[in-house]
């Protein structure tokens, strides 16, 4: 309902409300509700409604003002994800990785741009089964990720989870979930815990365009908005849910609008430009950290590879994929920008080489480290003994 603290559309909400500190989001409750709107005033209210204010703030200042160092770091992280995923694809083809393996190639700017704005180890991150990139972007060691993919004892889940089920409570990375949509309420639960403890942390919950149609997403939207949970819902719209193009599965294809019914402000973001992504994250985080409740971001992105390793890819043309690779690649984009800024080709090559080395080492580690001990089969089912 109407709230006196709501900023006008003209003024980006992100800057307000100033009286609320991140650590005490409950302060917003103190704001006195305005009188119930009449029918006439409700129209005006819609115009002033905050739903579009974040989008506006983002439009006013699209790209993050990164220093050369920062941009180099983003570049490095994206290249790490790209090379890691290429290697994973290769190991899968060799039979060293089994089961389902979903690659993040093409979507690198999303995880890197968003998570670079988070406080790693404090803010929570949760996603689905396409999780390697989010882990790498949160500084988790590629070795233990790759070793999990090959099902080895040294893997981050001791080989018991696999590609889709990896976690690091140390980094506050909460998975790694195989059931489409399940991570959304779980993410709201993580946000609930942040708010409950008053630790000022937020949760970033990623899900796909396909996952956006699960009912539990909307149950979560309602509660997250109702309780002003500190969560950023991130729809990674890569155009397809397996073989289903967005328009064949979704009545409302502008996912950022899907929070409207719950009064959650939406943001429509170009997910192929790491600086645009990062700037959008700044806007959203400021709003959420100020205790205003959730934000829904749609990141337009693209996956170059099949849904998983076994994907006939008959649902899109080669030309479409090639066009994205040639003209919208986030890594090539960042590289071009670096060169334009006068960073030398040599420096970039040095990064590329270092990453290749890191990835080769992680693959080596993942291949040579032993399978889990047989006793691992029975551990971790329950914590206590009864």
């Amino acid at each position: 309902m109407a709230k006196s603290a709501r900023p006008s559309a003209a003024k980006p909400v992100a800057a307000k409300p100033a009286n609320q500190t991140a650590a005490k989001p409950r302060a917003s409750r103190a704001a006195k509700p305005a009188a119930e709107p009449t029918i006439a005033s409700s129209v005006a209210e819609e115009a002033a409604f905050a739903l579009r204010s974040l989008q506006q703030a983002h439009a006013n200042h699209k790209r993050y003002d990164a220093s050369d160092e920062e941009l180099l770091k983003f570049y490095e992280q994206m290249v790490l994800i790209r090379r890691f995923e290429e290697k994973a694809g290769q190991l899968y083809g060799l039979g060293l990785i089994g089961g389902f393996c979903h690659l993040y190639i093409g979507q690198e700017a999303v995880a890197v741009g968003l998570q670079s704005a988070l406080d790693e180890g404090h803010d929570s991150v949760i996603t689905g089964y396409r999780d390697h990139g989010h882990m790498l972007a949160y500084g988790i060691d590629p070795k233990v990720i790759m070793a999990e993919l090959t099902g080895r004892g040294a893997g981050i889940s001791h080989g018991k989870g696999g590609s889709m089920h990896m976690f690091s409570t140390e980094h506050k990375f909460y998975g790694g979930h195989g059931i489409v949509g399940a991570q959304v309420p779980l993410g709201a639960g993580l946000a609930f815990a942040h708010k409950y403890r008053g630790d000022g942390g937020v949760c970033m919950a990623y899900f796909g365009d396909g996952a956006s149609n699960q009912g539990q997403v909307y149950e979560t939207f309602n509660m997250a908005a109702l309780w002003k949970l500190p969560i950023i819902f991130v729809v990674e719209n890569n155009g397809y849910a397996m073989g289903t193009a967005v328009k064949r599965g979704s009545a409302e294809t502008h996912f950022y609008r899907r929070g409207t019914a719950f009064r959650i402000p939406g943001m429509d973001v170009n997910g192929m430009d790491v600086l645009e992504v990062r700037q959008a994250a700044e806007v959203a985080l400021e709003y959420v950290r100020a205790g205003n409740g959730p934000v829904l971001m749609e990141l337009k992105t693209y996956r170059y590879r099949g849904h998983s390793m076994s994907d006939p890819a008959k649902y899109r043309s080669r030309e479409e994929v090639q066009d994205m690779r040639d003209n919208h690649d986030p890594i090539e984009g960042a590289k071009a920008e670096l060169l334009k800024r006068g960073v030398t080709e040599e420096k970039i090559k040095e990064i590329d080489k270092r990453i290749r080395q890191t990835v080769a080492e992680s693959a080596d580690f993942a291949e040579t480290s032993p399978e889990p001990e047989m006793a691992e089969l029975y551990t971790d089912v329950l914590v206590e003994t009864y």
Partner: protein
Amino acid sequence: MAIELKMPALSPTMEEGTLAKWLVKAGDEVKSGDILAEIETDKATMEFEAVDEGVIGEILVVEGTEGVKVGAVIATINGEADDASPTPAIEKKPAEDAAPVVQDVKAKAAAAITPKSDLKPAVDPELPAGTAMVPTTVREALRDAMAEEMRADSRVFVMGEEVAEYQGAYKVTQGLLDEFGPDRVIDTPITEYGFAGIGTGAAMGGLRPIIEFMTFNFAMQAIDHIINSAAKTNYMSGGQMRCPIVFRGPNGAASRVGAQHSQNYGPWYASVPGLVVIAPYDAADAKGLLRAAIRSEDPVVFLENELVYGRTFDVPKLDDFVLPIGKARIVREGKDVTIVSYSIGVGFALEAASKLAEEGIDAEVIDLRTLRPLDTATVLASLAKTNRMVVAEEGFPICSIASEIITVAMEQGFDHLDAPVLRVCNEDVPLPYAANLEQAALINADKIAAAVHQVCYR
């Protein structure tokens, strides 16, 4: 330095495939992401992309070659001299991967048709003499069952994720969209709870929906409608509100897809009054029972198995091949011990039985086929004959179908028992991903044979 390009595994269960088409030739320059070839598996055609940069050296497997083993070298790439990109993974692979590539297309094609195993159960006895048998995969048998029922009854439609344009995530609905059109073969968004409810409502409204779950793991999102809406309404309405619906899809462990994607829901659904639960093993049963399920006036949960989809069995060529629901089948006769199983477990039980035969133990194998209602008469008759029993089930041991069979043996077959009935189930843990742990957790023929030795005291 030449990099060997190997036949890739494109799915967890792929062992070999057809090299359908080369899109490059020797001497072509390629870069990462270029499509090199099209590869066909029993499920689909897939594109094989380059990961490395360089120039194609030699094409070692000509296009059109069938049965190319995963890991076989199919071509070489000469990498750029200065590109020291380390690819130790490739070089280090043991030589066993370089399986000889057969270039004789015809010879390979013939080999490919032969069923993977000779564990074909005896054919149902009630068939008319001289009935022709057609080798059919379980996948095709299920599709044929749906197609035949859809031709016969316009109320029947199929709904689920990727069932239409994609031809089914596991290709079970292949070709149905072409024949029946988008009004009857319907792609849904990823909304299991929603479309299971819509299907249930449509059944209450007089239609005959077949709801495909991409796997039964995802039916947990929808289980409220299966149980609270579909199973109970007839009873609660005093017989007024029928719900003739089929919920079907793969169930149980696949291959290394982890705990959330590997569970057998047979015991869950079989515990619910108001449901019929079917879990066939071979192609003929899959076909005959799915047709029966679609015709049934009751809600049916029809549990398939991904690992069995590609197996070939004989299916009788009959116009109206429908099998009875609620009837188990003796798939191998024997006198020393009874092995009761269902779904993929039947394959393991038959394998165990042939091993045991070599050791002088003559095992009878029963395929339950229907889990609810259970055909206790067939199980008890066999027990009365052999006096010893083992239940083999690919699923958790606790509160399992095995538990139920053992209860039946205790309550109704106690006088016939010469030894305690044993169950051979998966380990009582969520299914792990690691290859060695997964193998240890799942049932197999050896574990069944060991239990048989135990109940036979030899």
